[in-house]
């Protein structure tokens, strides 16, 4: 109910928001798909990755290079992007899941860093750090101009709604419960007869694919593809979004993304030192809201919140 309500509210907001916030919200929805993907792995399965930017980038470049090199229309290119991310997450999952804990963090970080450097290395194809533009005239699906603010908003909303409902379905499903069990106590889950490795691999692939969908959508909706999306800070972002919003809650990643976006935006209107504000808020939140914003809401008021 709450989640359908959120989607309905977002539909309504399209008609009443001023242009600036309207545009922001479209971005926030795409970025929160990235965060929701991250949440599957981190919030539910308990796998802390520091390399999620590579999946986002795989989707983005899978889509972007298809358009740039082979003039594939953005619709099919978007699908190619998602497949690219799925394939990468499968390979990374197969390798990285041999490790746990901090080693897993480092391995994902290293793979992501290698992806970033590879983009630079193949600069004749990728245009290196600068990246390239997906021209406005090709950003169309079925005659709809995706650079139009309203279309863009609804495209972002559709992707967001699909992913939100998918995560909701996942966590209410038995598989979702197993992921939580793995997060809580992996050995116990294994000794209840679950192939925890396969579940974790599935979580990595779902998570990476969702991140890739966000990356491909970002390129399609906002028109630029670049290597800065593969850099380490962009892997830290979803972690922050999820931790602030409330790990292991379906709606938390969206709340966290919204919060961080406006924290940055508003504080940069007040002061140059927006990083200082962000830093202090992060510290305060960890001191006084240990399970993130939605975690607190769940603890205090809505115990049933998935």
């Amino acid at each position, binding site marked *: 109910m709450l989640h359908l309500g959120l989607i309905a509210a977002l539909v309504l907001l399209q008609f009443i928001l*001023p*242009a*600036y916030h*309207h*545009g*922001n919200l479209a*971005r926030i929805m795409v970025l929160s798909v990235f965060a929701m993907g991250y949440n599957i792995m981190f919030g539910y399965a308990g796998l802390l990755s520091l390399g999620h930017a590579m999946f986002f980038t795989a989707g983005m470049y899978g889509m972007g290079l298809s358009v740039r090199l082979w003039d594939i229309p953005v619709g099919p290119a978007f699908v190619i992007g998602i497949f690219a991310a799925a394939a990468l997450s499968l390979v990374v999952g197969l390798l990285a899941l041999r490790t746990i804990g901090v080693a897993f963090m480092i391995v994902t970080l290293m793979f992501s860093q290698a992806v970033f*450097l590879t983009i*630079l*290395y193949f*600069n*004749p194809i990728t*245009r*290196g*750090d*600068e*990246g*390239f*533009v*997906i021209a*406005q005239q090709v950003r169309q699906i079925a005659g709809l101009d995706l*650079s139009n603010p309203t279309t863009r908003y609804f495209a972002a909303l559709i992707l967001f709604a699909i992913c939100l409902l998918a995560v909701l379905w996942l966590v209410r499903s038995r598989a979702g419960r197993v992921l939580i069990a793995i997060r809580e106590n992996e050995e116990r889950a294994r000794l209840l007869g679950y192939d925890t490795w396969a579940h974790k691999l599935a979580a990595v692939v779902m998570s990476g694919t969702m991140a890739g969908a966000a990356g491909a959508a970002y390129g399609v909706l*906002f*028109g*630029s593809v*670049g*290597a*800065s*999306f593969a850099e380490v800070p*962009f892997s830290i972002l979803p972690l922050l979004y999820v931790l602030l919003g409330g790990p292991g809650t379906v709606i938390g990643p969206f709340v966290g993304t919204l919060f961080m976006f406006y924290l940055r*935006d508003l504080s*940069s*209107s*007040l*002061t*140059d030192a*927006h*990083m200082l504000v962000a830093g202090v808020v992060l510290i305060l939140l960890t001191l006084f809201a240990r399970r993130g914003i939605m975690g607190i809401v769940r603890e205090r008021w809505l115990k049933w919140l998935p």
Partner: protein
Amino acid sequence: MVSKKISDFKPSRRKVLTGMAAAGATTALPGFVPFVQAQSSEPIRIGFQVHRTGIGAAYGRWYDRTTMAAAPVINDMGGLNGRPVEIISEDDGTDPKRGAEVVEKFATHHNTDIAYGTLFSHVVVGSAPRAGELKMPYFVVSEGHHVASGMLNRWTLQPGITDVKSQVQAMAPFVADNLGKKVTMIFPDYAFGHDHRDFFSAAIEAQGGEVIAKLAIPPTETSFTKYFPQIPRETEVIYHVMVGPAVLTFVKEMGEFFGSARPEIFGFIDSLEAVDLATPGLEFLEGTYFWEGMPRYAQENQSEYDKFYRAAIGVDNNGASVSDPKDVSTFAHMFGCWETLHTIKAGMEAAGYQGTSDRAKLVEAVEAMTDMAESQAHPQGAKVFNGKTHQVFGPQYISQVQDGRLVVQHKTALEDGFYPDEVDYTTQSF
């Protein structure tokens, strides 16, 4: 006095540069239609996308100072079409994603008339699509070839600084004729470095020389000596261009590597932009050559425009802050901000710009520009603007380090930097 005040610079988010002088001057100026005055004495709002944090912050600080110095000068001259200019700054963190958001914020939140000022090319490429969709004139000061290559859009223009392709093409004859034909290039593995690599290789071959090795240094690298052995022994000229906080390490280690047996060295001043030449470890640079966008040290034949420009920003004859001689400016690049703002002024006046509905007219007016005479508005030198490619072409300077100062040896002609058009933006619809 002015310079003193501005050099006590503190980053501030917004500076409303209206002021009495501007208002007084406009009414005194002839040629203004009264109803224009009556209708809009509101300031023209220029959204300034500035690298205040992130890797570009060292440049961003001086782009900011130049912009904040140019605005009152423009207001003293009567502002834009009789209206004062207001600069609205927003930090982009030298991040393309945030850059696009900032452009959006200018257009839909601050309601600025135009956006301006971006330096790092990946931020330009990340932001320009949004500017195009929002139909917002976007004046960049980045020297990237991205504008003239045709990858951006009709709303993006670069009228204040020459692009890298033109710069390196103009350098090649001097390098081949005076320094040597066998060149080893060292450049950052960024798109910016790739422009150098591709265009200089082609240009030096046209001069009968060749690039015998290319060392692309990965970003964020902090030590360089280990790569230098890849420089072939038969190298006659080292061509170096580096950016980022590690540039000084790079140059020092290069000196330590060669010792007394260095080949000729030709570098882009980017490798030492904002770095004091008197820093220990740089002595070996004596006698080497640098490209400069604008000469850091006031030359013997200094123009009055150069003098005025330095005074307005608060930069001394050594290119350093008047209040702190160790605070060296990004002199070879930041003139682009000054000149771009003056070009915007000229464009708005030519277009009779009244408000955001005249944005397309502004772009057309700038596209119609050609010659820009050396003047207070263009202290770096006379330029030609190519309306089809949205790119300006100016003179380039080659200086030699003599007694720890950069002394201009050669100033290229505009024609040295011309190349065939790769795009005609004027054929695109708005």
